[in-house]
């Protein structure tokens, strides 16, 4: 069947959409994530994770209605979860702070 994937201009649409979304929202996301994590390394990783989730799944209703609110909230949640995971790891490691 003639349905093999041939790269076309339309294949670039998604990348362009994602690029535009990223450029428009990175700054507030970064501020929100860094405020939660307190360091840039974790803020970077939180934002990366949010964008990977955006293109791995289908767009949710909340995302479609208000992308910036969705992305900032997701970045903060991800940043908070990373912080909690780190704390948990620290507490369960022998010699860690209890």
């Amino acid at each position, binding site marked *: *069947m*003639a*349905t093999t*994937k*041939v*790269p*076309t201009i*339309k*294949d670039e*649409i*998604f*990348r362009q*959409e*994602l690029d535009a*979304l*990223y450029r428009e929202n*990175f*700054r507030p996301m*970064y*501020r929100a994530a*860094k*405020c939660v994590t307190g360091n*840039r390394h974790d*803020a*970077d990783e939180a*934002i*990366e994770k949010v*964008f*990977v989730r*955006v*293109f*791995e799944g*289908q*767009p949710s209703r909340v*995302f*479609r209605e208000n992308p910036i609110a969705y992305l900032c909230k997701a970045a903060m949640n991800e940043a908070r979860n990373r912080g909690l995971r780190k704390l948990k790891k620290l507490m369960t490691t022998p010699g860690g702070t209890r």
Partner: protein
Amino acid sequence: MKKRKKMNMDEILRKYWPSASHEEVESADERVWKRVEAELDKHDTSLRSLYGDGWSAPPLEQLEFQVLTAVSLLDDRGTLKSITAMVHKWTGREMVGHVYLTLGGLAERGIITLHSDPTSEYGEEPQHRFKITEDGDRALRRAKIEGKELVTDREDGLDPR
């Protein structure tokens, strides 16, 4: 007693929300985008969209999927007759009327194109041939990912596979 000045939310945020420097945000922007792009390269996003129903390819109904698959398989030999015959094998039913209407709908949506047969002789009624477009090809790929099956409603009780 000195009256306390009330602050609105914007003022509170400006005063207490830690802000990153312009240089820091710029460098983080580039750094994170490179990592997002590297992840993006691992995924096939050719049919994806961030908006609408999440696809950049048009959706297909079951019969449209069968008709379009027949058009794709038959390539240059796709006439109403040959397409109907192929769809008949999958549905177990003669449905030339439905196929005709479906072909019209697909052509209107730009998923297939219609050509007159150049080999028809003078005075002979030219046969129309159908060809799949790039959008049609994408629609077929989407339908496959969605798990649409070709064989449906076999009335003879035979296993559809």
